[in-house]
């Protein structure tokens, strides 16, 4: 007994592992994991996701200062890369592989094996018939059975003057089933590999400006762990024009109609090999394996700032970020080199400004630039650009800036139309030179995208096979005096289909009508 007692834990541990494996690979567990996967995907559709819209996440954090840290701890701003989401789908994969591998082996064995032997007693099958007939030519009857059973796998055995034919059809069902589940694995592998080697960056380019595909030029950039950031394909883009069209009349007035970015691109330094491009939504520019997409556009007013000493210290286009459907846009102008003190401007751009009341700020009535206007608040002091801390180009660090005021103490706001100049208190001026447009371009490469795509298409093919095809076994036993037919569906079809099948086979096999007795 003592020997058994010491052996028992080791055995039970192995038993336990075996039991665990059976649990994990059981259909019930797979089903529960599948439903769990659906459940854990929900939060990502309700809460903002950092990978989708980082700014929305920031806004959410500000609006819910109590809740946000807890959501952070649970990884709910990164739902689809969170530990628990990954745990569910990895377990599901283990379960899937654990289920599919033995079934593939079993399928291969079954395919190589002969169709199962005929049962001794045909009347036990769900559909069968017995016909007492004179069979002059047994072989001919078997041949007729072969013909009527068509493409089924057929095996014929002869014993004591009785010939038994076994037929199995519809094995493509399990084949399709296996293909579908292997395809699911293929999709996940493809997505994973693609994200390891892929990259995606976004950059704002103003009309007349250039962009070279190097890391430092990007506003934001993300790449997979195995992507070599130094190996970005070399190309350059010159943006000539952004063309944005909006509905001019009718109830949908102001709705976007078409966006396009036009210009030229070249690979390497050879400017003579410039090619022109016309990127529109749904029509990216393809440069080798890299695609350039137009994912946004807006206005970049050009400003010219002169400081108190009469020097032109700034002359450039400044992208303002659109905030609503009428392209009311906000932005900042930073002029650190102004003397004697740095200048900062923060304000808004209205493409079609209209006045709504004497003491109210103007608003934008239409997204196209019909009556452009900028309104700017003015700051003086240290812009903090030398501190080394990274700063957003769309925000002013006001810690060491003083806002300029009117004589009555209200904040000074300069309003400018294109060409207008405003003198600044204490010297200097700012001119709104002209309006340009900017394009927000996304440069990305999704390598191995064919892998998940191809796997999904294969998977649907397998799925259709596994849902449409129904396996069926048919047996025919022929002797000189009796013909018996039986059939069995592994998946029932209902509606008397199996009986019809048995009748059809029997009719074909019987030597000639009229001699039978059932």
């Amino acid at each position, binding site marked *: 007994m003592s020997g058994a007692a010491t052996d028992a834990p080791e055995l039970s541990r192995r038993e336990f592992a075996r039991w665990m494996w059976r649990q994990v690979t059981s*259909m*019930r567990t*797979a*089903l529960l994991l*599948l*439903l769990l*996967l*659906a459940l854990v*995907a*929900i939060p*990502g*559709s*309700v809460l903002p*996701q950092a*990978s*989708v819209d980082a700014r929305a996440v920031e806004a959410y954090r500000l609006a819910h200062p109590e809740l946000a840290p807890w959501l952070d701890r649970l990884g709910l701003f990164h*739902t*689809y890369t969170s530990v628990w989401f990954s745990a569910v789908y990895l377990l599901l994969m283990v379960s899937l592989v654990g289920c599919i591998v033995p079934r593939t082996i079993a399928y291969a064995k079954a395919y190589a094996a002969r169709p199962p032997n005929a049962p001794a007693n045909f009347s036990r099958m769900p559909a069968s018939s017995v016909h007492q007939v004179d069979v002059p030519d047994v072989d001919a009857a078997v041949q007729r059975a072969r013909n009527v059973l068509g493409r089924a796998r057929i095996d014929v055995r002869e014993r004591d003057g009785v010939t038994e034919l076994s037929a199995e059809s519809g094995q493509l069902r399990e084949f399709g089933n296996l293909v579908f589940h292997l395809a699911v694995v293929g*999709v996940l592998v493809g*997505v994973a590999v693609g994200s390891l080697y892929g990259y*995606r960056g976004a950059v704002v380019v103003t009309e007349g400006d250039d962009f070279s595909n190097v890391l430092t030029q990007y506003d934001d950039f993300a790449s997979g762990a195995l992507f070599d950031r130094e190996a970005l394909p070399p190309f350059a883009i010159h943006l000539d024009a952004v063309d944005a069209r909006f*509905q001019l009349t*009718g*109830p*949908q007035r102001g*709705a*976007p*109609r*078409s*966006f396009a970015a036009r210009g030229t691109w070249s690979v390497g330094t050879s400017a003579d090999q410039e090619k022109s491009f016309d990127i*529109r*939504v*749904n*029509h*990216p520019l393809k440069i080798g394996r890299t*695609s350039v*997409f137009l*994912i946004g556009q807006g206005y970049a007013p050009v400003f010219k700032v002169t400081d108190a000493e009469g020097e032109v210290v700034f002359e450039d286009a400044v992208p303002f970020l659109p905030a609503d459907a009428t392209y009311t846009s906000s932005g900042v102008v930073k002029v650190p080199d102004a003397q004697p003190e740095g200048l900062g401007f923060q304000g808004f751009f209205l493409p079609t400004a209209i006045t709504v009341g004497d003491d109210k700020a103007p608003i934008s009535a239409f997204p196209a630039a019909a009556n452009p206007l900028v309104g700017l608040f003015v700051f003086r002091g240290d812009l903090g650009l030398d501190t080394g801390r990274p700063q957003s180009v769309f925000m002013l660090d006001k810690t060491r800036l003083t806002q300029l005021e009117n004589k009555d103490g209200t904040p000074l706001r300069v309003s400018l139309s294109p060409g207008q100049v405003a003198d600044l208190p204490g010297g200097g001026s700012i001119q709104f030179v002209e309006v340009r447009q900017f394009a927000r371009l*996304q440069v*990305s490469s*999704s390598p191995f*995208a064919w892998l*998940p*795509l191809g796997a*999904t*298409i294969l*998977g*649907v093919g397998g*799925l*259709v096979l596994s*849902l*449409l095809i129904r396996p069926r076994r048919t047996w025919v036993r022929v002797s000189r005096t009796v013909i018996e037919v039986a059939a069995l569906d592994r998946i029932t079809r*209902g509606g008397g289909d199996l009986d019809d099948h048995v009748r059809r086979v029997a009719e074909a096999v019987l030597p000639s009508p009229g001699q039978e007795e059932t």
Partner: protein
Amino acid sequence: MTSEAYAQASTYLIAAATVVLAIAFVAHVAEWALARGADEEPTSASVAAGIGRSVTVLALLILLAGVVTRGLAAGRVPWGNMYEFGCAAVVLMLVAYLVLMRRWGRAIDWTGAAVTGIGTVVLGASMLVYVPAGPLVPALHSYWLVIHVFAAMLAGAAFVIGAIASAAYLLKSRNPAGFSRLPSATRLDEIAFKVNAFAFPIWTFAALISGPIWAQYAWGRYWGWDPKEVWAFITWVVYAGYLHARATAGWKGRAAAILCLVGFATFVFNFIGVNLFVGGLHSYAK
């Protein structure tokens, strides 16, 4: 005809189709009321059923005309926003219902009341999100609009009928002696399975093949967990669960039928909830 005239005609036709379909629904309700309690179906009930079916065909023809004129008014396929999706999806649901009636006859004719009722509600609700006929936002300027959205509508139309069969299964399996108009529980389970087995590969194509391909062109990534994508994925997963459940001991029958209804609910939420309340890149309600 000018596009304004087409738009006007479309609006009238779709409103008329809603009324006619409501009449078909009333006829089918009368059919159920008249057949109530009787073992043999009384003639008055089958007269009502016949009226219901004929009026349904009429409603389909008017609705089809309304959807076609809508397309002519806008100069594109008539499924570019929520209103149009609702109307076109009802066309497909009615076509699916009538095709199945031809194929399966008595096994499916009991769905008349549910199909016409749901159709009326969807058409009525679509009018709440009515937008005038017009061109589309740039992201939708793609032939994938034709393919991707049509596949989603077709799958949705079949999901509706599958859900009706599963709901009827739940009623019938609880009370096999009652609901004499309904086929047997086994048959209902089979109908639900067949319809969903048709819809699932189409949904897979809409959500996981054509959707990602289009997203790659329009947004530069094939999958980005946009709320619409998340819920399309959830619907896919739940229906995959349903197909597995039908072959799993302890899940066959009622649990599988409930999963079918849950799957359908996620589809409906994706259409209504995500469009109107969640937002995201797929915000084409207006």
